[in-house]
């Protein structure tokens, strides 16, 4: 079953993240995720994440597709106006890319090409509206398409951003606009994960909870800087106490993943490395009698 079919069938979803290379060498990237083939349902291909210049996510998505993976093409509003976004979406569909995850994108000055012109012609809600319109057979300008794309559209949600009511309102707009699944920023607390899970379900989409294993105290502090309320003190204390913080952080994430497998609809691993460990964890989940009915 593809990611989209599983989503429709209400199966438990496992996604992970892949960053295109800085250069043309893409084979190593594909080799790196080989252990996850057939285990992770789909791979989000990031769009110059954190505004760092990388290979086009559209090209990388096609390369993944050809290598036997199901990609989720991420597109941001940062670098393309509505003409380019529609063009890329049509191109993606023609290349066989079915899943897209649409978002505003980080600001240009946060990345490694700070002098670039920020575009932001559309915002994330409008980009989702645009993709939906294409699937209905029309361009934004009302012109009819020769061949309409079919997309499984996703959005993102950061439960730690504010003002909370407006974040929820915007999430609702995204879902109304056609987002079928919602991937979240990394969460480190089962209670928050469950609240977000319920919220997204209530609004009518499938929640996929973001998980990012902490490798060190330094990384935890970095995450805390990005999203101060996202990293609980207990996690920081645990890392401080542990002789092997990387293992501690990994086990912490796996515990959380277990909890989400019980109440949730999906998990999104935003990690680099540890693919073997992740592969065996997914095997374990899929074979465990407590969870296997969800897959």
């Amino acid at each position, binding site marked *: 079953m593809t990611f989209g079919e599983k989503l429709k069938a209400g199966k438990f979803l496992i996604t992970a993240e892949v960053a295109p290379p800085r250069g043309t060498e893409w084979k190593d990237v594909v080799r790196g995720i080989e252990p996850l083939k057939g285990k992770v349902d789909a791979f989000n291909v990031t769009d110059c994440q954190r505004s760092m210049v990388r290979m086009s996510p559209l090209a990388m998505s096609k390369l993944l597709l050809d290598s036997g993976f199901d990609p989720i093409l991420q597109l941001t509003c940062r670098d393309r106006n509505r003409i380019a976004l529609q063009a890329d979406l049509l191109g993606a569909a023609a290349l066989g890319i079915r899943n897209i995850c649409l978002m505003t994108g980080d600001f240009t000055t946060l990345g490694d090409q700070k002098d670039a012109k920020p575009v*932001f012609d559309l915002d994330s809600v409008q980009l989702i509206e645009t993709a939906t319109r294409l699937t209905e057979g029309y361009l934004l300008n009302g012109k009819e398409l020769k061949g309409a794309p079919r997309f499984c559209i996703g959005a993102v949600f950061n439960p730690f951003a504010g003002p909370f009511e407006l974040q929820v309102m915007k999430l*609702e707009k995204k879902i109304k606009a056609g987002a079928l699944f919602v991937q979240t920023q990394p969460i480190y607390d089962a209670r928050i994960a469950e609240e977000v899970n319920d919220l997204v379900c209530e609004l009518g989409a499938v929640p996929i909870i973001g998980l990012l294993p902490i490798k060190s105290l330094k990384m935890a502090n970095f995450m805390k800087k990005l999203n101060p309320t996202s990293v609980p003190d207990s996690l920081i204390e645990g890392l401080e106490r542990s002789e092997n913080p990387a293992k501690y952080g990994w086990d912490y994430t796996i515990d959380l993943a277990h909890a989400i497998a019980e109440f949730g609809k999906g998990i999104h691993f935003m990690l680099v490395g540890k693919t073997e460990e992740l592969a065996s964890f997914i095997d374990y989940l899929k074979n465990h009698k407590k969870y296997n009915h969800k897959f």
Partner: protein
Amino acid sequence: MVVVKLKAFEEIVSKLKGFRKIFILGCELGSGRCKNGGLKEALELSERLKGLGFNVVGVKSPGGTCILERIDGRERSLLKEAKTKGSEVIVSLACGAGTQLIAENVDVPVITGVTTLFIGAEREGRIFNEYCIACGDCIISDTGGICPVARCPKSLVNGPCGGAIEGQCEVDKEIPCIWYKIAERMKKLGAFKSLCESAPFKDYRKSVYPRRLILEEKS
């Protein structure tokens, strides 16, 4: 108001190579109000230039250098004055619009002593914040009179991005995320619910420059 910033003295001087007789024009409207190019700054610049041996033949700062009448009126023309005094160059401290208007109407070179920054609001006589980017399609009636187009770096019209953490903007921790202000204001006004509606796509035709406004003749 239009907010400008004086250029570094050295930069101004570097553009004056080969000239001796200088006429300085400030502007009391924008440049003067933000203390970066009114009469006071024009006189200060004059003194420093004189110190380097330049011959400053006149210093004027009309109330609105971007208004042709104010610099070239029937009663009084600063441009003619500059000419009769034999100015070889005009240094303008007016905004980009005013400086261009001068340049359009004189034969000598015009160099600018300021950079035009933005359309802003003034507070305490010394803080100037960008409030409007003249998008040509004003939406602030829907956002509590607070502009997310100019005051959110991404010009987001449907609500905050995921980088809005604890009231600060992801782009610059020194500036507040404007959507917190909009939320607060809309709550106070009892109009919070109206933010639920998806905002229409912006029509960027309305900000294609150069734009113009022509007043209808009144009959």
